[in-house]
């Protein structure tokens, strides 16, 4: 147990350089703005004196190193800058919009896993069968799908043609008012409020964006499950288990699947990266009020602080998610907890 704890501790320390790297890169990006950042933040009609004052305020007249430490210290205090269009602190706005994105991403991950894992396992246990071909087609097609295209296509079919889904505009039909905020995830908050109609309305809005994103990340999960399962199925211990007369289901699930899932867990890090990136596009397509559409709105208005805050927040979130995946891996790998290296 102490060994496991020590390993988890080492993982935590290992994430620090990445976190540093993320901060350094976003710092470089904030200073790479075209033209003079001071003139930009002072506004179009500012006089030379006002520009100089802003330059001093922002510390742009200091050395690069000092600027960096000021920037990092500001981040530690939660200072991500202020949005020019709304006048609100960027961090506050990001935090208030994050639950919408998280709800969509988590649901999409759940959906993708519940389809991709069985599909990958079935493809691996029957190589060359129609299900294997289907898996192959889905994994190649899945990575070729532009998410904005699938999103629009799904909207057209399920909203315009069939009328099964609500209009692809936002998290909730305007006739409903959002549940009182506990977690910020409408599905959970609606349950807490005991409002079934509200839950159903929120769920209906979620279906299409979630489906769009799940289709996109299904491919890497299914591909990895299949490859990993194939490898485990051809290993010696599975052959021994089979030769000992264990039932095929026991061999497949208790012996093969449990071991095959380990590499799949490590790919989850990559999958999270895909999802955080594509969530920007999916949010734009469905008018979803998450952090991604916040960044796009700011981009359209040439308001840079929110965009930079968004890039930084996503970088930090991604490092933390990878850390979580690493820790999870350390905890579930039987070779580590049993003390065999």
């Amino acid at each position, binding site marked *: 147990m102490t060994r496991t704890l020590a390993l988890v501790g080492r993982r935590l320390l290992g994430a620090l350089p990445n976190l540093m*790297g993320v901060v350094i*890169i976003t710092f470089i990006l904030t200073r790479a703005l075209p033209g003079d950042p001071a003139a930009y933040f002072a506004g179009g009609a500012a006089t030379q004196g006002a520009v100089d004052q802003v330059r001093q305020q922002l510390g742009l007249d200091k050395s690069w190193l000092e600027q960096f430490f000021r920037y990092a210290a500001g981040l530690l205090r939660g200072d991500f800058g202020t949005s020019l269009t709304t006048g609100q602190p960027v961090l506050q706005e990001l935090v208030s919009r994050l639950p919408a994105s998280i709800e969509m991403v988590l649901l999409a991950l759940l959906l993708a896993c519940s389809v991709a894992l069985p599909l990958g396992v079935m493809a691996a246990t029957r190589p060359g069968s129609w299900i294997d071909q289907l898996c192959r087609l889905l994994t190649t097609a899945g990575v*070729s799908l532009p998410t904005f295209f699938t999103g629009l296509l799904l909207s057209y079919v399920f909203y*315009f043609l069939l009328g099964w889904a609500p209009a692809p505009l936002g998290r909730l039909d305007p006739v409903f008012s959002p549940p009182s905020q506990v977690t910020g995830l409408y599905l959970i908050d609606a349950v807490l409020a005991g409002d079934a109609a509200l839950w159903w309305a929120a769920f209906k809005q979620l279906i299409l964006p979630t489906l769009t994103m799940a289709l996109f990340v299904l491919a890497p999960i299914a591909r990895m499950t299949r490859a990993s399962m194939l490898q485990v199925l051809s290993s010696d211990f599975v052959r021994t288990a089979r030769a000992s007369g264990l039932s095929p289901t026991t061999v497949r699930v208790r012996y093969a699947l449990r071991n095959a899932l380990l590499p799949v867990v490590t790919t989850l890090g990559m999958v999270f990266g*895909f999802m955080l990136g594509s969530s920007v596009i999916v949010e734009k397509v469905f008018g979803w009020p998450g952090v991604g559409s916040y960044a796009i709105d700011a981009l359209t208005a040439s308001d840079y602080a929110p965009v*930079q805050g968004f890039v930084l927040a996503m970088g930090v979130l991604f490092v933390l998610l990878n850390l979580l995946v690493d820790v999870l891996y350390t905890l579930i790998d039987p070779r580590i907890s049993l003390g065999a290296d």
Partner: protein
Amino acid sequence: MTGFLASETARHIRHVLTENPVTLVAASLFLMFVLLALFGPWIVPYDPLASDSAAALQPPSWQHGFGTDSIGRDILSRTLVATRLDLGIAVSAVALSFALGIALGLAAGYFGGWWDTAVTRVSDTIMAFPLFVLAMGIVASLGNTVGNIVLATAIINLPFYVRVARAETNVRRNAGFVEAARLSGNSDLRILAVHLFPNILPPALVQVSLNMGWAILNAAGLSFIGLGVRPPTPEWGILVAEGAQFIVSGEWWVSFFPGAVLMLAVFSFNLLGDALRDIFDPRKRT
């Protein structure tokens, strides 16, 4: 001997192409896209920028194969003309990250030491971001131009090439043929260029073909959210974005055709990448 090897390779290529008919289809599609990129502007029926308000938002017909958009521009012409820009962005981005990534990875794997640490650290830091988000940040910061789209796409692809080159160089650094070359007085630079580079070329080329589709998707995604290429320039991502508002009112063709062509292009690149991997490394087939 070389003749024998060449015919052996040719046979293998023929085998891969004929064994799986899908590969042949992908190769033909690839050829079609290359031809479109080269000759697209000369073969399209209409001027991709000419509007005709009398013929706005018309569904596909014999006159307009893919229909017309909200100001009456011919979508077929716009989609075909866009091929050159989209492929151009992807090819330049991948070429840039190939050249830079291979050079950095070769040096890191061969010399080791602090150089290796620095290169690995930088590429790990790039990978610490969700890559599309990093690309967004780069274009937003450096300025909204096509050149910066290329640069951003090249930067987010860089780590893959660095890793391939570094790993492949590392295992060969002390191989017999490298030692022999060193003992016979070759300089480090010459060993890297003449003896090691050809060895890492096959896996690097596979990486190129797998990256191309992704680079196209990435560039189109950036323009879809309003970065890089600007309207009215025809580009697949923008064309889809222009039609997005008409989806809910039923004018599906405005987005559908550019999106479908984009998907087809990425799909054929990905299939071809898989085939190329089979040609270079039959063992890695999954």
